[in-house]
């Protein structure tokens, strides 16, 4: 039993006012078990009652790479330097997918969990966080396939060389996660009011992929397109991340530490904005959703 307290000694307060920057990290920490249980739930239940199960993790990036190789390298004849075109595309897709999956899944957090959010309180941010973490697992598997193919092509000397910058891989993954989560939280907050945004997400991710240097080297864009257009790719943080990832594994393309750090800064900023909007929305979304 607690020791006798003065009447002023309240544990917490619920009121209409809140601090914009109050992220309740302590509370989120208290709910860490829930985070892990959500991750577990996502992983365990995703492929229940499907025929191929986790194989879907493999099929999707592989088939996409094959198509991209046929279209962009076969037909459009984009050169990928010393690196095999298929492997080049697989690298881009692997890192891109992590971002895309995080964004897609987190962007309807509020709508999808309306039922449970409407009845029980827990820090809402646990939900998108758990999605980002469980997608990390998926990403791990896909990295696994990439490594397998990398080994294969390295044997035929078509895989470039690994850069020492590979130690920055966690930073790259972190950036992708932060960007996906941040944008996802912003969109999910807006979806509570404007439902049609969900359609836009699917379509938007597609478009975004084409300007994010996933299936072509960044240099080609700068070389072939006028600067009035190429800046879209050049200054797109996503394109930078994809390019950096490829540099790490192939030592092909552009890379610099400042590049990575500035992108990390941008992604942190977007994540923070996302968190603020998300926190604002979670307070009353149940009345509007």
């Amino acid at each position, binding site marked *: *039993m*607690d020791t*006798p*307290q003065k*009447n002023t*000694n*309240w*544990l*917490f*307060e*619920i*009121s*209409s006012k*809140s601090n*914009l920057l109050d992220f309740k990290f302590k509370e989120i920490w*208290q*709910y860490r*078990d*829930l985070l*892990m*249980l*959500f991750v*577990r*739930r996502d992983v*365990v*239940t995703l492929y*229940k*009652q499907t025929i191929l199960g986790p194989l879907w993790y493999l099929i999707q990036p592989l088939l996409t790479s094959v198509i991209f190789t046929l279209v962009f390298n076969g037909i459009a004849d984009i050169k990928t330097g010393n690196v095999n075109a298929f492997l080049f595309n697989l690298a881009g897709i692997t890192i891109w997918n992590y971002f895309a999956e995080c964004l897609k899944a987190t962007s309807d957090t509020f709508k999808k969990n309306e*039922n*449970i*959010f*409407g*009845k*029980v*309180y*827990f820090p809402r941010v646990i939900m998108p966080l758990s999605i980002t973490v469980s997608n990390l697992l998926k990403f791990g598997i896909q990295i696994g396939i990439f490594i397998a193919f990398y080994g294969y092509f390295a044997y035929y000397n078509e895989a470039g060389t690994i850069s020492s910058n590979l130690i920055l891989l966690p930073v790259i993954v972190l950036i992708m996660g932060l960007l996906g989560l941040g944008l996802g939280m912003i969109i999910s907050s807006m979806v509570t*009011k*404007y439902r049609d945004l969900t359609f836009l997400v699917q379509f938007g991710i597609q478009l975004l992929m084409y300007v994010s240097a996933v299936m072509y080297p960044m240099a080609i864009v700068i070389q072939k397109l006028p600067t009035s257009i190429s800046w879209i790719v050049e200054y797109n943080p996503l394109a930078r991340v994809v390019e950096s990832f490829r540099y790490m594994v192939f030592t092909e393309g552009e890379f610099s530490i400042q590049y990575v750090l500035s992108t990390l800064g941008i992604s942190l900023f977007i994540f923070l904005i996302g968190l*603020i*909007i998300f926190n*604002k929305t979670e*307070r*009353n979304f*149940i*009345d*509007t959703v």
Partner: protein
Amino acid sequence: MKEKEVILRVENVSKQYRLGVIGTGTISHDLNRWWHKIRGKEDPYKRIGEENKRSTTGKSDYVWAIKDISFDVHRGEVLGIIGKNGAGKSTLLKILSKVTMPTSGVIRSKGRIASLLEVGTGFHPELTGKENIFLNGAILGMTKAEIKSKFDEIVEFAGVQRYVNTPVKRYSSGMKVRLAFAVAAHLEPEILVVDEVLAVGDAEFQKKAIGKMQDISKGEGRTVLFVSHDMTNIQNLCTRSILLENGKMVLQGDTVNVIKHYLQGSEETYVKSLEAHKNRKKGMQAIMQKVTIGDGNAKVITGKEFQMHVKLTLDTLKEFSIGYLFKNEKGQVIMASNTNQYGTKLITKKEKNTVTIVIKALPLAPASYSVSLFLGNGKYDIDIIEDAITFPVFWENEHILPPSKNWGSTFGSTSWEY
């Protein structure tokens, strides 16, 4: 004086909803609102700062789901929250459980609040019972270690030992509810919020659930806020209650009083005018004028003498017959009688306009009942009022415990000879 510690204090809490469709056709409206929100300013369309919240309510198409609610809850108390549909009970509970925020006002708490609003939320059909216990427990705020230590207890309480490793989608709905309640009941928050969960489950489980709630409050000293439409449950569990009406708190205090007030609306409990009763059957003459139970003030008590006075205008009648019919809260007929059954004809007397119906020992169990009244001219009914008056029956007996909720609507004084 032994002052109990206040564990939860609700101060002037209000919640506003906007009527009509939200967010359509008003993107500029919304953008402006959003811009204000982002800067942490007040909503330009609501103007509900504490200073001017009253002055602006009339101007807009916003409604107050609850308004200026204030009350204290003491440690270890079971507080009943009573009110008709739409009175704001659920809104209040949602605010207490942090699902939505109040528009204005403050709630201060000294303990963790966990809510049991419609159990079973967060159950995933593909996961097994065991996995769901952990998931649901965590959603409700328990840590993994806490759940682990209570796991066996939870499974036993729910009575689903055989199905622990079966996916929840194979459970019957009753089993799901039992499991969900079991998880929630083993939570250890200082304050538990319960809403209508007992409406589900069979009689045996309901009893178990009520018992558990009593243990929680009495044995473990935890605080429960309990919302239900079932007055028997409220009466059994809660010592103190608050009554909500149209978003405002109209009464707080002793449960018996609050229930009495609730069942009767705001009118007097045991007196009712029948002159223009809305339940008078069509085509009937308004002969019955007023009904008074007892002296119009004293409580009706199980097993005691029951008197009902019906005032009549008998100018047109030489003789008459009268009958009554009791219904319980579910609308089931409990007992009825009339003068014809006794072969009695009442002859109109000039100087007397009130007939008194006396039941020597009222055999009704404590609950709420309605009385329908029938008046005939000796051949057929000429005035019928369905549910003319509704009133609670109370239990007051030092030597006999009140009958359980599921023992039916009647009570027969029994002797046990051996």
